[in-house]
């Protein structure tokens, strides 16, 4: 695969998961606030539906980012993360992304399911 393609995959793998998790976290929490706040009720949001859709799409995106990262790691196996850039740097960030995306995926799954399985708007 061309270095240029690898560069793109590497940045997608590194930043894609992060951005999507941020969005899912903010929007997901925002939905709970809108659902349970006095001003939000008349918006008629179904918490569980939204959380489910949000979790599924975010998770899918993060998995894609993870796959991108793994692709880059495989493609650059001949160089080391200490080699000169770009190859070395690309591999370095790809390894980083491979770990980061696992963490983002776990958060998305945990809070997504918990937001669905807990009683909506019950005070904790």
């Amino acid at each position, binding site marked *: 695969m061309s270095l240029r393609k690898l560069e793109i995959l590497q940045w997608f793998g590194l930043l894609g998961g992060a951005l999507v998790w941020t969005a899912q976290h903010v929007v997901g929490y925002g939905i709970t606030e809108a659902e349970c706040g006095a001003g939000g009720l008349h918006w008629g949001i179904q918490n569980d539906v939204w959380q489910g859709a949000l979790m599924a799409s975010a998770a899918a995106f993060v998995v894609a980012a993870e796959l991108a990262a793994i692709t880059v790691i495989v493609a650059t196996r001949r160089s080391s993360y200490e080699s000169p850039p770009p190859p070395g740097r690309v591999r370095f960030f790809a390894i980083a992304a491979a770990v980061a995306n696992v963490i983002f995926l776990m958060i998305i799954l945990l809070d997504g399911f918990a937001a669905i399985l807990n009683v909506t708007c019950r005070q*904790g």
Partner: protein
Amino acid sequence: MNAPRRDRLCAVLLLAVVLPLAGCREKQSSLAPKSHQARDIASLFWWMMGGAWLGLALVVGLLFWSWKRRNRRGFRDDTEGPKPGEQASWYVVVGLGIAMPIAVISTLFVISDLFVIKTTQAPAATATKMTVEVIGHQWWWEVRYPGTPAVTANEVHIPVRTPVRIVATTADVIHSFWVPQLNRKIDTIPGRRNAIELYADAPGRYRGACAEFCGLQHAHMDLYIFAEPEDAFRKWLEDESQPAAAPSGDAAAEGARVFQDGSCSSCHAIRGTDANSDVGPDLTHVGSRTTLAAVTIPNGDSSLRDWIIDNQHIKPGNQMPDIRLPSSQLDALVAYLENLK
């Protein structure tokens, strides 16, 4: 004497509203649970603590191992050459540093935030037979029993082995209602009505406190929960709902006059009299309480007298001024208040 029996003995003594005897030492401990909620939380803690010690031992073990190996031949040239044990170290980092903690912590998340939380979350409005309103003030607790005229302060009576819904609100700043032996805490937030369930396995007196910093006397804003058998509780609520008894005897009558004409009635209420201000605690049955000033001092003739004339020294900054009275009037006032059983 084993714990349950001792607690029962204490409870009996307390029902007679005498101060706790030495020997039944009081607790405010989250590790001495007296309800299923507190017990779930405590066992959650014990498990987590076990895991924590294991984790710490693992890390300390590694450090100690490196200390044992400290005298090997130096690696000085390895700093340029290949790094020793890099491959194995990667396995350790990925295994113990990523896979293991993800598994363990996710399990903890599921157990505590999907299951245990079901027992500690606020009860639905209809879930309990009974509701008690607790209102935080700087720095004392007002206690109301909806559906009855009963109003008291700093001492909440509840029926034992009965889920009670506590509605915690505040009259001023944020406080936090916390009785560790019965349940987790809940803040009292201006503009919100927060709820929590109280349930006591055994009759007894449980100590609680304000857990959120609320100003000068945050340290002296404690409370008691009295869990009593159903009938005893009913009797107490019945008495508490009654207006104050007419003062018996000249001293008490004089005291009543002092109370009404003096500054007392401008802040305190005594149901059945003209005094109906709600700045300070309701004193209708103050004589029947075990403590004064949010569990700062025991209730009793001498301590009540000290409180009236010298409260700014006992609880500096509290909202009641020192009341200067000629001792004859003071005696009468104390006699009157202490007879408000």
